[in-house]
């Protein structure tokens, strides 16, 4: 027994002294240069497929919050927009967002129509541009998911009364051009990043931007028939499937670990690993804070907890922490998320007062909470001026261009279905396929 202890202690001394002797060396020597590349790439790949899973989350959430007669259409929009984003980002978006040396207007506009190319098969270290970063494929894969997320925010707001094709055409333009351009201003090394604007994983770049496009659409489209009565009262149109809506929210919550965690952009060192851990923890606690804030508020204000608000609250918490999920303490992140959740409880009825019909609350959750999250970065040392400029410039850019596109689409092909089609339900009129057909077939 004593000899065993001696062996153990001497082994311990060996390990400790080796570690102390090497303490002077840089982190990357402890994980080899190739290891850093592999770990970073791994983070992108895992983060990427987690964010891809958020597409399922959005699909389920929206399917659950629209009425039965519109579910098939909503699902079709979700899978279509994701696929469109994938192609558009490959054809145009990725290089437009990360011009590198290829800016057309430095800091503002990257190269248009530049296809994404990957490293050759079986790439060797010599063929890698930056060994300290990650593979192009993983970078493209990861960033593509963010582009798709932006587009999917729009589909919820304009549900139940928009024709399918105008939405798909808008998505092409949003994912190929609008999103990549505004994101290049920050993550592509453009003028906003020079200004000191800070948006870790995209509270503004993704969420508020998506909400701005959605807001423009909702304004051009108009509210659903019967939603707002002449006397100013609001006619609720409850969703068809609470289990799907809840499932969707949990899926989004899970995917968000990839969304925020992957945005660390590195996993090849102790610091990075610890950082990603902080990000996962803070992301989770912000969602929890948002959910509980909405739960408590709806109990107080409406005397009953509103599940759909709790779901929106959790998402608002996630959106709020997205601008800075690394720096805050767990308590701080919880608070940031809780404020986001509280904001949503007030924002949803406020939009109704303005007669902006947002079917799933996306403008409140992604837009208003997204702006809050971006401003909240000042509590972690961000510059208020830079945060304001970043938020306003991106939201205005997206809103104005989106408004023009929606308006032109409306002129050319009409974006709203006929009154009869809207009342019958889009599933049968746009697609000829009930979501819950039961015995409709002979």
């Amino acid at each position, binding site marked *: 027994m004593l000899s065993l202890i001696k062996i153990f202690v001497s082994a311990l001394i060996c390990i400790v002294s080796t570690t102390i002797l090497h303490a002077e060396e840089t982190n990357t020597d402890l994980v080899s240069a190739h290891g850093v590349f592999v770990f970073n790439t791994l983070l992108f790949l895992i983060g990427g497929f987690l964010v891809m899973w958020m597409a399922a989350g959005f699909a389920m959430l929206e399917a659950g919050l629209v009425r039965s007669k519109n579910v098939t259409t909503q699902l079709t929009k979700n899978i279509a927009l994701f696929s469109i984003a994938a192609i558009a980002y490959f054809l145009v978006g990725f290089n437009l967002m990360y011009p590198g040396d290829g800016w057309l207007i430095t800091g503002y506009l990257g190269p248009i129509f530049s296809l994404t190319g990957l490293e050759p098969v079986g790439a060797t270290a010599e063929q890698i541009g930056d060994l300290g970063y990650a593979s192009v494929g993983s970078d493209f894969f990861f960033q593509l998911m963010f582009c798709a997320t932006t587009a999917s925010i729009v589909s919820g707001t304009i549900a139940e009364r928009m024709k399918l094709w105008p939405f798909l055409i808008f998505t092409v333009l949003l994912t190929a051009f609008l999103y990549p351009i505004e994101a290049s201003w920050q993550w592509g090394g453009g003028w906003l990043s020079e200004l000191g604007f800070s948006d870790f994983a995209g509270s503004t770049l993704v969420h508020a931007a998506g909400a701005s496009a959605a807001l423009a659409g909702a304004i051009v489209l108009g509210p659903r028939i*019967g939603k707002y009565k002449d006397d100013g009262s609001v006619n609720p149109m409850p969703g068809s499937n609470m289990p799907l809506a809840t499932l969707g929210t949990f899926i989004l919550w899970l995917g968000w670990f990839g969304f925020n965690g992957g945005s660390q952009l590195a996993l090849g060192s102790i610091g990075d690993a610890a950082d990603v851990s902080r990000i996962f923890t803070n992301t989770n606690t912000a969602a929890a804070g948002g959910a509980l804030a909405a739960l408590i508020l709806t109990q107080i204000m409406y005397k009953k907890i509103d599940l759909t608000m709790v779901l929106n609250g959790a998402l608002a918490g996630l959106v709020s922490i997205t601008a800075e999920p690394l720096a805050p303490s767990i308590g701080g992140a919880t608070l940031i998320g809780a404020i986001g959740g509280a904001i949503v409880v007030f924002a949803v009825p406020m939009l109704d007062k303005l007669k902006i019909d947002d079917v799933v609350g996306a403008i409140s959750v992604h837009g208003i909470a997204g702006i809050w999250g971006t401003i909240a970065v000042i509590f972690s040392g961000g510059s208020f001026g830079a945060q304001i400029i970043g938020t306003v410039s991106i939201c205005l850019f997206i809103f104005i261009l989106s408004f023009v596109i929606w308006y032109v689409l409306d002129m050319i092909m009409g974006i709203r279905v006929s009154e*009869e089609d809207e*009342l*019958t339900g889009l599933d*049968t009129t746009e697609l*000829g*396929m009930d979501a819950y057909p*039961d*015995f*409709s*077939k*002979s």
Partner: protein
Amino acid sequence: MKIIIAVIKPFKLEEVREKLTEIGVQGLMVSEIKGYGRQAGHTEMYRGAEYVVNYIPKIRLELVVPDNNVSKATDIISETAKTGKIGDGKIFVLNVEDAIRIRTGETGDNAI
């Protein structure tokens, strides 16, 4: 006492209910049904195969009213539920033997 069975287009329900309330109707039974009359079905496609959709979603209203209110009620339903397009629906009027209010035991017109 008569029971009025009305088959109407689903989006007309709220309007019809409001108008019926105005003429003093205090109770309604509503079910979602599928059906067809002379509004025939149409063909759809599912995974490459054609099929005929025979049944169209409708709302079925049932209300029991005293004799003196029957024609007012059927007129109101007719006017409100009408769109002029095919598939507006139908109204049937049947006799009711008796009605009983479970809570108090009242019968007849007092029960409706």
